Each structure stands twice: as structure tokens, then as C-alpha cells.
């Protein structure tokens, strides 16, 4: 065993060889799960893969198809949209009164 491999920086995968014996392979660990920027909740629909694998994937399979998809959770994005629309409409009313 190589000295670097003995540490726990790499994850171990047991693989059955064609000869029938089982060997351990050392692979790099997956990155941490994607979280909401606002509340820190784990995001759904965002795959947990290394960047080389993310490159090969389609854009639609990497995040939900909505504004701020893959950045905010659904609850936070919904709340933000309501705040945005109401603040805009309030500003419009104030302009009219002046």
C-alpha cells in the first residue's frame, strides 16, 4: 500500500476482479451536498458528483428549471418572488400618489 493511500482522504471501493478475488480501489471523495444560500437546507434535484462528471451532464439535469434553481430552495424562492412583486407594486402606488 502506498503511504498516501493509507490516510482517509481517499474513499475505498471494493471491486471484484475478473479472476474472482476482491481488491480495494482508492477513489476521490464526492463533494459536499448543495445547500440553499438563504436557509441552508439541502437542495433537491442537484446531483452530487465531481466536476468532470458534471461537465458531461445536461444543464437541465443539474438543477431545477426555475429562476434561482440550484441556488435557493423552493420555499425561499417562493417567498422571495412574493416580496419582489409586492415591493414593486408598492413602489408603483407611491409614485402615483406623488
Amino acid at each position, binding site marked *: 500500500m502506498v503511504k498516501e493511500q493509507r490516510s482517509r482522504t481517499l474513499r475505498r471501493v471494493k471491486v471484484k476482479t475478473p479472476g474472482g478475488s476482491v481488491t480495494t480501489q482508492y477513489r476521490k471523495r464526492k463533494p459536499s451536498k448543495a445547500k440553499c444560500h438563504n436557509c441552508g437546507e439541502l437542495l433537491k434535484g442537484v446531483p452530487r458528483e465531481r466536476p468532470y462528471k458534471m461537465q458531461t451532464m445536461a444543464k437541465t439535469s443539474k438543477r431545477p*428549471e*426555475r*429562476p434561482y434553481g440550484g441556488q435557493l430552495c*423552493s420555499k425561499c*424562492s*417562493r417567498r422571495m*418572488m*412574493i416580496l*419582489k*412583486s*409586492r415591493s414593486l*407594486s408598492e413602489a408603483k*402606488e407611491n409614485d402615483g400618489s406623488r
Partner: protein
Amino acid sequence: MMEVGRLCTKIAGRDSGKKCVIVEIIDDSYVLVDGETRRRKCNMSHLDPINEKIDIQTGADHKKVVDEFKKLGIELIETKPKKAGERPRQQRLKNKQALEEKPKKEKPAKKEEKKTAPEETKLEKTLDSESE
């Protein structure tokens, strides 16, 4: 609050953050919506009503909605639905037919091989002369 002509913003989905108007009330939970969003059925819980109204009749056309939105100062981008392309299977069939229709090229007649006796090489000539 939810009635025909009410302006709303969509909160959920791919059209979220876009303005729309209620065109028709389908159900006690669903409405038909048009405007910046696509013209589609929509859950009322995915809509956030604004304090504005447009006077349109139930089931108004998309053209009328576009005109009303222009008055508010919102110009809608009209997109035409893409025409469905021909299926590859059909194309393949067409190609097959074309191939069948094409007259087969007649093979060019084989060139008549000229059978001539090979000329005697120098060595052979010398050998002949020696034997004599």
C-alpha cells in the same frame, strides 16, 4: 380576490417572477392564465395577486391580453411554436424508395484482354544463340 382580469405574479415553477392575468376560472383550485407566462392552467396557490385589474371577458384571446398588457407598459415577447420536424424513420423510408427507383448502373463491359506473346528478353536471346 381571484377573479377574471386580476393581475398576478407566478411564484412557482419555470415562469416564476413573471406577471400574468387570470383569463378563466376552471375549478375551485385551478385557473387559466396568460401574459408574460405561457397560456396555461395554473394552481391558485402558485399565484400571488397584485392590486391591479384588467377588464377582459372570460376566455379572452391571447391578442386581447397582449393589447391590454401594452396599455400597462408591459410588452410581451411573442414566440411561435416550433414546427415539428420530420421523423428520421420517414426520411429513411424516403431514401429507400429513392434508392429503389434509381436505375441500376450497367456495369461497363470488360476490356478485352489483349493476348500477345511476350517478347523474348535479351537473356533468352543470348541463351538461344549460344545453344545454336
